[in-house]
């Protein structure tokens, strides 16, 4: 764990502000949020989903949530060549370019991010059909779900800053 807290940085909390004081009351939550982010973005055991791919997917999820500051943070974790798969994945208009695995990953990430209520058992089957195993399905689910939590914490903190 580092001293940085990406969630608080993205929310843009002025030091010495009333908001900073309120957030300090939940320092345990904020530290665990950072630790979980590191576990889903750059785990010791990434399995079949590489750190570059995770960064691309995380940036995509942030963009689907109109969270450009966080999306930019994740984009900085991607390889800096413009045509790398991770960079393509981060663009919400990219749908996989015919690659079955990438297309399945993207379809799942978009569905669970934008309309999780519409998820069905078949959505998991579609992942297994392109060779994504159970462990990677859970790793992917945690990545998607965590970033969807993080963007809401950021949006909420910004609003809180406006009303206190």
């Amino acid at each position, binding site marked *: 764990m580092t001293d940085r807290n990406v969630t608080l940085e993205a929310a843009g909390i002025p030091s010495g502000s*009333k*908001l900073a004081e*309120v*957030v300090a*009351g*939940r320092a*345990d*939550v904020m530290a*665990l*949020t950072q*630790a*979980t982010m590191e*576990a*889903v973005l750059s*785990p*010791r*055991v990434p399995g079949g989903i590489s750190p570059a791919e995770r960064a691309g997917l995380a940036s995509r999820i942030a963009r*689907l*949530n*109109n*969270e450009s500051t966080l999306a930019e943070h994740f984009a900085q974790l991607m390889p800096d060549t413009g045509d790398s798969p991770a960079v393509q994945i981060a663009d919400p208009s990219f749908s996989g370019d015919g690659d079955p695995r990438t297309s399945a990953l993207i379809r799942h990430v978009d569905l*669970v*991010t*934008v*309309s*999780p*209520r519409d*998820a069905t*058992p078949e*959505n*998991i089957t579609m992942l297994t059909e392109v060779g994504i195993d*159970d*462990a990677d*399905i*859970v*790793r992917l*689910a*945690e990545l*998607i*779900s*965590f970033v*969807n*939590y*993080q*963007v*809401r*914490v950021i*949006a*909420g*903190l910004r*609003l*809180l800053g*406006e*009303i*206190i």
Partner: protein
Amino acid sequence: MSDVVTNFTTTIPDWRPHVTPVDLESATPEQLEAMKVTPSNAGVSEYVRVLAHDPESLQHRSPLFNAIMFNHGGLSRAERELSAVAASIVNRCIYCAAVHGKRYNMLTKDDQVMDQVFAEGDRAELDSRRRAILNFATQLSMCPSAATSGQGQDLVNAGLTPDEILDLILSASLFGWANRLMHTLGEPVEPEQSNE
């Protein structure tokens, strides 16, 4: 095979995973360690055994969940549960809504609020404080978030302190996470009849 539960209820369903849970006998030391820190230590559920496929995130996720839902001070426990239910309705996570709706009822000793919320969603007839909480948590749960500073101001006008609003943000956001696991990695099914 049990029937899938498709309507909101406070009768807690069983949960049937779509992926094979980690077998305790073949689990790695890291998986066992991550499973030990569960929201309730009463046995290891299939859900936790599914999440143990990713022990690095589970290890932090469980204490984070407990901190957001049970930390001292700030928003009342019942109101954190209401926030969790609002998110679970948006995401149509029947299982999470049942568990947290029931917990709300137990904490408040009142079934009427949850009956209203399940029947009417964000049009439920509630007092101004509960209405403001339900509205805010519902809008924050949209993708992208549709919460506005006006809805934030409604919380202030309903008497919520900044500490309470922070806990509301955290609990609604947490269920943006929990619902996306619970509702996509498995499904709620009618509880099996006990043979005992």
